[in-house]
Structures are given as C-alpha cells and as structure tokens.
C-alpha cells in the first residue's frame, strides 16, 4: 500500500447526502475478478445520464479530493467502491459522516476518509465552486484539512494513522501474532461448528 502523509490537490464538490455504494459503483461492475480498472464504474449512472453531474464538468478534471454530504458510502460492503474512487484518481474523501464498512475499507486500502463538520463541508463546497482550481490539503501528519481560509483538525486514531503513514498491510501485521492465534484456538469451545 502506498504511504499517505500529506496530500494537496483540487477538489470535487459532491452536493449529495446518502451517496450509497451502489451509486459509487453499480453492481454490474462487480462481476470482474481483477483488482484494477474500476474507474469506468465510478458514479456510472450519474456520469452517463446527467450532463450536469459534477464529474462531467471539465473544470473538475484531475481533482483528487472528493467533498461529499453526510452518509457517504452507506449500503453494500463492496470494496470496489474504494477501488473505483482510487482508480479514478481520488486520494481522499471529506464528508460529515461515512458508512462504517466503506470507511473501514477505505482506510484499509489507503484512501483517506476524513470526517469534518457539515459546516466545514459547506465552506469547502463554496470555495471549490467559486474557484475549481482551489487547492485542498489533507494532512494526515498534523490531522488537519486546509484550504484558503480553512484549517480544520480531524480525528483519526493513532494506530490507523501510523499504518497509513507507513503504508502497512494489516495481514502482515497480524501474522506477527500467530502465536496468539494458535493459543486462542486451543481454548475455543469444543462444540463450535466446522464446515467440513
């Protein structure tokens, strides 16, 4: 996983609440078995049907920060939603609230999801709508979002922050504790079911 420390880029204002993962990437794109190339599925229905949809506006081409309304990423557990955002070029998503599974998936995969108050989201929207070239910085080291006139701290637990900054993969970290897993398995109830 790529290390994440500080990212600065232009931002896309997505003025919707409850953007579920079916909207982020429709189910038809989930049939693939590869791990890359999901950018064509990102917001596929809105991109195809709504010329006014924000990602269809040339002034937001190349943006790498998405600023969305509350409850972004609710619904299905599909990690393809994270992959689609990353494959499209997004490094961070800022919103007042995220769906839990989506948030977990994003932080596993190195897409930084940042929770800030709705009021800050509104100010970011106003800023990037007034000037799409506005640069937004997501600083994981200082745990702060910055844009002209905005310096908003955000919370992220130390462990996740460390893992993202080091670009570490969870599985390798867990496998350091195989002894603990072996020991736990010896004390499981004998009557627990097996599948085979």
């Amino acid at each position: 996983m790529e290390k994440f420390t500080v990212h600065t880029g232009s931002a896309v204002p997505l003025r919707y609440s409850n953007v579920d993962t079916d909207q982020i990437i429709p189910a038809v794109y989930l049939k693939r078995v590869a791990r890359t190339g999901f950018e064509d599925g990102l917001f596929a229905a809105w991109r195809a049907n709504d010329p006014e949809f924000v990602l269809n506006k040339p002034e937001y081409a190349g943006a790498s920060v998405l600023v969305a309304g509350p409850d972004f990423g609710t619904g299905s557990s599909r990690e393809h939603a994270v992959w689609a955002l990353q494959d499209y070029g997004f490094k961070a998503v800022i919103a007042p609230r995220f769906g839990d599974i989506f948030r977990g998936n994003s932080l596993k995969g190195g897409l930084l999801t940042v929770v800030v108050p709705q009021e800050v989201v509104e100010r970011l929207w106003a800023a990037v709508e007034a000037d799409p070239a506005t640069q937004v910085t997501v600083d994981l080291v200082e745990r702060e979002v910055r844009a002209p006139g905005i310096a908003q701290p955000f919370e992220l637990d130390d462990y996740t922050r460390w893992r993202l900054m080091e670009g570490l993969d969870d599985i390798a970290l867990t496998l350091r504790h195989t002894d603990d897993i072996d020991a736990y398995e010896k004390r499981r109830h004998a009557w627990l079911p097996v599948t085979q």
Partner: protein
Amino acid sequence: MARTMAEKVWEEHVVRRAEGEPDLLYIDLHLVHEVTSPQAFEGLRLAGRPVRRPDLTIATEDHNVPTENILGPIADKVSRTQIETLRKNASDFGVRLFPMGDIDQGIVHVVGPQLGLTQPGMTVVCGDSHTSTHGAFGALAFGIGTSQVEHVLATQTLPMAPFKTMAVTVNGSLPEGVTAKDIILAVIARIGTGGGQGYVIEYRGQAIRELSMEARMTICNMSIEAGARAGMIAPDDTTFDYIKGRPHAPQGADWDAAVAHWRGLRTDDDAVFDTEVVLDADRLSPFVTWGTNPGQGAPLDSAVPDPASFADPTERAAAEKALAYMDLAPGTPLREVRVDTVFLGSCTNGRIEDLRAAAEVIKGRKVADNVRMLVVPGSMRVKEQANAEGLGEVFTAAGAEWREAGCSMCLGMNPDQLKPGERSASTSNRNFEGRQGKGGRTHLVSPLVAAATAVRGTLSSPADL
C-alpha cells in the same frame, strides 16, 4: 462490570489486546460468495498464503446466479467467469462450496442458518453487508470488505475498532398483518440511514421475543440499512428450537454444554446502552418506502410526503432528489402507487415463512394484469420445503414466476432486473437508485404487502383485498 450481550461476545473472541491498537478478534465462521472474494483469493496466491481454517469457511454461489435454467452455462460471460473463479478458488484452497444445482446452494445468509452453522455467541463475517442477519441468533456478525475477506482467510482473525451499543426496544405485540419487516422499516425511518453508525444494535422487548427466527433474521438483516455495524437478538428457546437437529448443530452432551453457555448470552440487567430507542408494536402498521434510501419510508396508510415538510435542509434536498427519481408527486396516497413488478425474495424475506405468508394471501387469487411477480426462494432447501407444502403451485397458479434460489432482483446482478422507469414492490432491503436495474424504481415492502400489491397492482395490504 455489567455488560451487554454484544460486549460479552466480543470479549470472548479477543485474541490479542494491546494498548493503542484495535482488538484482534477471532472469527468462528467465514461465509464466502463469488462477488467479494476473487481479489482476496488472488491476494493470498500472490503472497503465497494458505487459507488458515478452511474448516471454518464455507462458500456458496448467490449474487450472480441466474434463477432459470441453472444447470446450463451462464449466458453472461463475465458472470460465468466470476462463478468459475469461485469454483477454482474453493478447489485450490480447500473451501467447501455449494454450487448451483446443489441442494444446499442459496443466498449465503439463508444457507448458514439453515445448516445450523450460525449459532449464538459466534463471530460471523462475510464480504456482504447483510451479514448482520446472523445476529438474530445472538451472534456478532459483521459485513466486511474484500481486504478483510483476505485477512480472515489468511489469519481467521480481524482487527476491529470498538463499537458503541444501542438498544432498540419494541414493546407490546404486533397487530394482525404487521410483520418484522414493518418493524425494521419503521426503525430505520425513525433513526435514519446514519443513525446506527458505529453501533451494534440489540433488538429487545416483547414484540421481538414473540418473533420467529425467520422474522428475527429479517430485522437483524436490515440493521445495516440503519447504518449499524451489526444487529443482535438475545438467544432464547425459540433460537435453540430452531438450531436443534440441524446438520451442524451440536449433539448430545455438546448440545447441553452449548445451550448452557448460550443462556448466559444476554445483556446484564444493570448494563447501560450508549443509546436507546423505544417503539410500540401496537401502533405499527404496514410500512413502505417512497424514496431512494431505506430511511425514506412511511405507513402505507399515508401519502408521499412534501419535501417542504422536512425541516432539515439536507433531508429536504434528499427528498426532492428522491421524488424526482421515483417520479412521485407529494401528497399522492401511497395506496395509489401503481407497480409493474413484485419481487418476493432476498436475504431479507426469502425464507420459508415469508413464502408461506405471501402464499396465504395470494392463494386462489391472480396476479393483476400488467404486473409481473417474481418469487425467488432464498435457498434450494427453501424451495424444496415450499414445494413440499404446495406453495410453488400456489404461486404459479396465481400467475407468478417461481424461480430457483439466489439474490436475483435484490441487486440485479443476474438477468432479473427492472427496466428503466419500471417500478417494483420488493421484499428486499435497498431502494437505492438503479439498485434493481438501471433506472428502476423500488418500494420496499413486507411479503404480505408484496402479495397484496401483486393482486391489486397498486401498493396494498391484505386488508385491502
């Protein structure tokens, strides 16, 4: 210290606890399907890692599978590749798989419980958000992403962030014609799609105790639609009676030991939940959704709301956007909303009791002209049972299509889809834009409302017949 049931199950599964790190939890059962697993198995291959506990892992084909002509090759090449990939992965890594045509094939959340693999006090995960279903047994069951699927395959554990606890207490008894689906739709309308975020919900109270296991699964299933990490119901005799005698249930002395343990899996009387929500079952009535998220619901007796009636500007904007997509005018009585399709099935309402309830309504009646009714059992065992009870004949005699098992039109990954502009009454769990097919419009309903709607052609309850 007094603890909730969820905290007890969590504590019992801590493999490793270290200051400043998430707890590492052991996973008792890992359910796998074709859509969220290919990249996880590929990750194992690339790293040269085996599946640590194939004997705690089970796979089924459900999301992609056709519900007609299931023994022929899948027509859609991409779907076929995904199914074939699962078969190869299961074979390469030693995971037991129920392929199409197997009597134990079906939707992953129907298959686990019916085999007796889902038991109280277990941790259950699956790369599917509706894993919360298994909480109906007093299991702690989470939906996970593909990175976590790979993590569980490799280590049989997951590092998990701590959760908050919420009690949803449903007092009293459900009136005739009101079901578990109406309870959970009313709960989601009350707390919103984000209301449960960060929480494990425990459903309790008299109305919950009075529910069958099938109905409890319907409730826990949609915990995710309230944004919750999981939903749980304390195990009781209803739970034990359901499990007893199933293929993977404990037997003999093991059964007694297990039940003794399970009886302790309840929230201590003096435990405190972080949040509590109370509902009166007596006041509930059939509930349907009018919008494009599961929190946008209302009693069937009411009308499509006016977006202007929402005080919160975000909710108002969401309602405006939803009504435009749904092509509904504010003030339209919900009973006047005409549908093209009725879908009875899914991990929410595709179990035998759901089919019985719908069949009871539709028996001797006909599906309305211009309405297509699709009945998709949650598993092949459910289909077998339904046929043995004559339910399949009831559906076909009424003019409904009686299909093979799978997720089907809940998410339209197979050919069972709405066409653009079509409207459905669906017993599934999500009314998102395009969920059941590009441009399709979905109203979430109970099996009883689905059956009555199929007969009348407009959103209806059995009392309208």
